[in-house]
């Protein structure tokens, strides 16, 4: 039952770690190209390493002995292995390559991943003729690193590489070098977040008297505390005399047995990177754009797209058409002499230069936006970005601003197309036009009939013929009624329908305005607010990912 429980908790730990890793990956992807490239590069490396490590068996615990040249890493290594594997000597630097010793089988993959060549690997069981099982260390992969402070720069690089990969780091200090800047400033201080996977060893205490040794160890502890590693386990050892080695061994055995070290190490790496990203990302909230601010933006773009010009032309054209259709027939032709304002813009009321989305849209002949209008669009876009990004941290605000104006150059074209594809007004003539037209012709016919009748009457009286019976109505002769009535009613009808036509033109123009503006708003959404939204989404994704990556 306990074994099952352990297994289950181990599996859930693994799941938890994968989730956090995935969250960090999402955050890093969202921050890519937006935050400091060096930081992103670090994060990428950490991710690669973490993925590599969790793919490998958690049954193995990689322990690295690191320290200055002459600090006794190799002697400790030999002590722990119970073998004379590592060369020990007075010539510095002694160890030039990493040596690995593994307890128990199956460490090949881990060693490959670590990049330790086969000739520097030792399987402890096969190297010892006598079988000394050491069951409590099964799964340990012990590394003896080169030094980090000698004149051999290649050693430093190897140490830096493996310090990033090992599950547990054992820092070997010694009386001469425990206060060196080389170890404190380059390794211990930056690794303060990894205190759970580090152990410090104060080696060579045999060289000091017991009082001096206690003093020196206390001083080393003080320096570690100054590095932010106050809680670090510090074991005083002597590789030559054997003091403290069993203590170190049992500390390692404890970690090997728990099989938690790889998990804790990766977790510390994730924390470290996530914290750094977090401090660059901050916790500001993007501000939502108010309706008024959006309307201002759309308004500026509409102005630049010539919407007011088009709407005015639409109204004028519709008014002209109405008066052409419903005006007094004899004078109707006069208004045809005036140019159609829409045609001047190469637009038709039934409009759309391209009728469907598959037809390439030609440019309309709208006047291209003036610098003033373009300036208004630019200003409005910038103001929008300012409002939205006001409380974001600097790096994100910069990327948001850049994104907001990134597609500004294409806005003019897109606006022109947007305006050109809108149906400005209904092509069909309103029904009342034909009724009025018929009525106009009828009235004109009546007037002409009355005129002819009167002319005939005049001719008859001129010729002295007896006047025919003159029908009268309301004491006036009917032909006079016809003529005057036809003319007066015709004028009145023309005037009325002109007024009605004007009102209807205004109404329809307003509708066209609404349609045009919504089309402009689409462009604004796509080319200005869209990119801004992408940035905000990235920001929120990054923050969410980091929060998740930091959650234990």
């Amino acid at each position, binding site marked *: 039952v306990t074994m099952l429980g352990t297994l289950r908790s181990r599996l859930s730990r693994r799941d938890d770690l994968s989730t956090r890793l995935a969250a960090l990956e999402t955050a890093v992807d969202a921050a890519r190209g937006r935050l400091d490239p060096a930081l992103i590069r670090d994060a990428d490396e950490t991710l690669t390493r973490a993925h590599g490590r969790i793919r490998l068996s958690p049954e193995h615990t990689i322990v690295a002995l690191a320290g200055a040249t002459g600090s006794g890493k190799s002697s400790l290594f030999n002590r722990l292995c119970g073998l004379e594997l590592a060369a020990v000597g007075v010539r510095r630097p002694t160890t030039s390559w990493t040596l690995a010793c593994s307890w128990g089988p199956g460490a090949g993959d881990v060693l490959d991943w670590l990049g330790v060549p086969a000739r520097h690997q030792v399987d402890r069981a096969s190297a010892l003729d006598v079988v000394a099982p050491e069951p409590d260390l099964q799964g340990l992969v012990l590394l003896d690193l080169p030094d980090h402070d000698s004149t051999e720069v290649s050693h430093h690089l190897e140490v830096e590489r493996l310090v990033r990969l090992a599950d547990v780091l054992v820092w070997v200090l010694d009386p001469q070098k425990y206060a060196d800047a080389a170890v404190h400033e380059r390794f211990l201080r930056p690794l303060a977040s990894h205190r759970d996977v580090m152990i410090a060893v104060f080696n060579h205490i045999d060289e000091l008297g017991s009082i001096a040794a206690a003093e020196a160890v206390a001083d080393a502890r003080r320096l570690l505390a100054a590095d932010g590693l106050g809680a670090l386990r510090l074991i005083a050892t002597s590789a030559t005399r054997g003091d403290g080695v069993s203590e170190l061994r049992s500390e390692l055995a404890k970690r090997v047995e728990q099989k938690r070290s790889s998990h804790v190490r990766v977790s510390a790496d994730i924390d470290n990177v996530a914290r750094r990203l977090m401090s660059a990302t901050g916790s500001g909230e993007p501000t939502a754009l108010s309706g008024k601010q959006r309307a201002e933006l759309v308004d500026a773009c509409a102005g630049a797209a010539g919407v007011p010009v088009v709407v005015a032309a639409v109204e004028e054209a519709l008014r002209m058409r109405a008066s052409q259709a419903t005006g007094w027939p004899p004078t109707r032709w006069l208004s045809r002499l005036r140019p159609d304002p829409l045609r001047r813009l190469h637009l038709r009321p039934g409009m759309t230069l391209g009728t469907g989305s598959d037809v390439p849209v030609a440019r309309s002949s709208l006047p291209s936006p*003036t610098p003033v209008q373009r300036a208004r669009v630019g200003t409005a876009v910038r103001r929008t970005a300012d409002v939205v990004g006001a409380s974001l941290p600097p790096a994100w605000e910069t990327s948001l601003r850049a994104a907001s104006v990134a597609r500004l150059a294409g806005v003019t074209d897109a606006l022109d197309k947007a305006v050109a594809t809108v149906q400005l007004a209904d092509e069909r003539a309103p029904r009342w036009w034909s009724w009025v037209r018929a009525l106009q012709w009828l009235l004109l016919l009546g007037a002409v009939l009355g005129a002819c009748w009167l002319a005939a009457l005049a001719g008859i009286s001129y010729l002295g013929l007896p006047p025919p019976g003159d029908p009268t109505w309301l004491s006036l002769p009917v032909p006079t009624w016809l003529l005057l009535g036809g003319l007066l009613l015709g004028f009145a009808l023309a005037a009325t329908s002109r007024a009605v036509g004007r009102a209807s033109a205004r109404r329809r123009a307003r509708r066209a305005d609404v349609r045009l503006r919504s089309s402009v708003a689409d462009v604004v959404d796509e080319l200005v607010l869209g990119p801004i939204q992408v940035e905000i989404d990235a920001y929120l994704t990054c923050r969410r990912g980091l929060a998740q990556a930091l959650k234990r």
Partner: protein
Amino acid sequence: VTEIGPPTGLLTVLVRLRQCLLDSPFRLDAPDAADGDRERSSILAQLDDYVIPRMVQVEAPLLAVVGGSTGAGKSTLVNSLLGRVVSRMGVLRPTTRSAVLVHNPADAQWFGADRLLPDLERTTRPTGDPGSLLLLPVETMPAGLALLDAPDVDSVEERNRVLAGQLLAAADLWLFVTSAARYADQVPWDYLKAAASRSTAVAVVLDRTEPAAIEQVSSHLEQMMQARGLGDSRLFTVAESPLSGDGLLPPEAVRPIRKWLDSLSEDVAARTAVIRQTLEGAIASLPARTALVASALTTQEQISVALRVDVVDAYREALDGVADATQDGTMLRGEVLARWQEFVGTSDLFKGLETRVGRLRDRLVSAARGTPPPAQTLTVAVESGLQTLIVEYAETAAEQAARGWRSLPAGARLLETSGSGLGRASRGLTAEVERTIRDWQGSVLDMVRSEGADKRTTARFLAYGVNGLGVALMMVIFASTAGVTGAEIGVAGGTAVVAQKLLEAVFGDQAVRRLAMEARADLNARVESLWAEEQARFFAVLEGQQTPPGTGERLRGLGEELSAARFTWEPV
């Protein structure tokens, strides 16, 4: 005692070099700035602490600085050499925190605060303060020689490392102490390589070595010294041996070193040779190091020029942009055009010009509607158009300048430290632009007024008034290149033609051309002065950070002068 005379010519050059370096700190981020600055401080420190004092007092005792790694046993060595405890020893690192200078009582006069290492405070009691120098007269110290126990070069205490570097740079002779565990460390070798490259006199002491390992380690160390240019330097070995009750090594362990020091004390010629080697080496290294600083300073100059150019270019472009937009006729559309047509009349554009009926009617209409007269609405339209235009160009220019700055690390740093305001137009710009445009319009009206002083009575002048003619002049300006580009020839050209005709009818064509030119130049000048204020924000940030032009060149000249002076200098 002296064989080296005071080399006045060389000294003058050195003093001038020092002043020039003092005057040119590094402030801008550049790839070579860190190196340049380090070299600059190191030259300055060496001139102040060593070269200049040493040249002034060539007869002062030889100063041997005992330097090296923490835990290598420097203090134990010094104490053992003198046979008494003068410097603190112990297992806690770093042991030595302040410098201790041991000299023969007879040499006390040479180590006052006006001599070597002037910025270290002299004390007679141990303080532990890195800013102090403990002066200890000790009888057992050979005369003509002083030993300075320096802090370590590699401990976690940064102040220790800095002080150690400073002390080593002030030494006539390095007694560089290392140990079996230390002799291949990188940090001390960095110092030794620097010493080798400056021909500083060095003796290496291999301390704290197991007797069994001495042979192997010392031969390896000797190889390393050969390989790194220290083949001529002496190597002493001190075996790890049991310490006496007060922590001293047995006298025989340090006897070779003591003997060597005694011989230096007795042999003036040998001592002078050591001093000369180090001093000449230090001076000989100066031209090359100065050249390095000079080239880094030239980079600084180039960067400040580049940053300045970024700003100037951005605003020049913006100025051109405004100038173009205000004369290619594009201003004469939309609002301005509508107001202009309203102003000139309705359909018959020439009506207003020929009769006063149109004017009268317009006045009546505006009186009845309660709207301001057309000339005024046109002025307002021009104002708002121009304002939007200028503010936008200011924004673009600021953005472009900031982008330019951001592309250089130095500029990016400046932007960061100066706050975020630089990438945008300044806060009060909109109001400033408004005022500027009003002033300009006012001055256009003044121009028209003074031009029309003698034409006040003509009917046309009266018909349009100063305001009317003023806006007509603005229209002419706004379309002055419209005909050239052809793009706006229709509407804008027409508008401008009407305005031109109107003005010519009043003033004559010669005067109109002149007025237009003056008014446009006036507008450009005003925008330019707006830009000057905008640019000044960038320049103000740059001001304290730039290296004056020619500094690098001057320094390089001094370096050359130094090389020449060095070769002409011969000891007397």
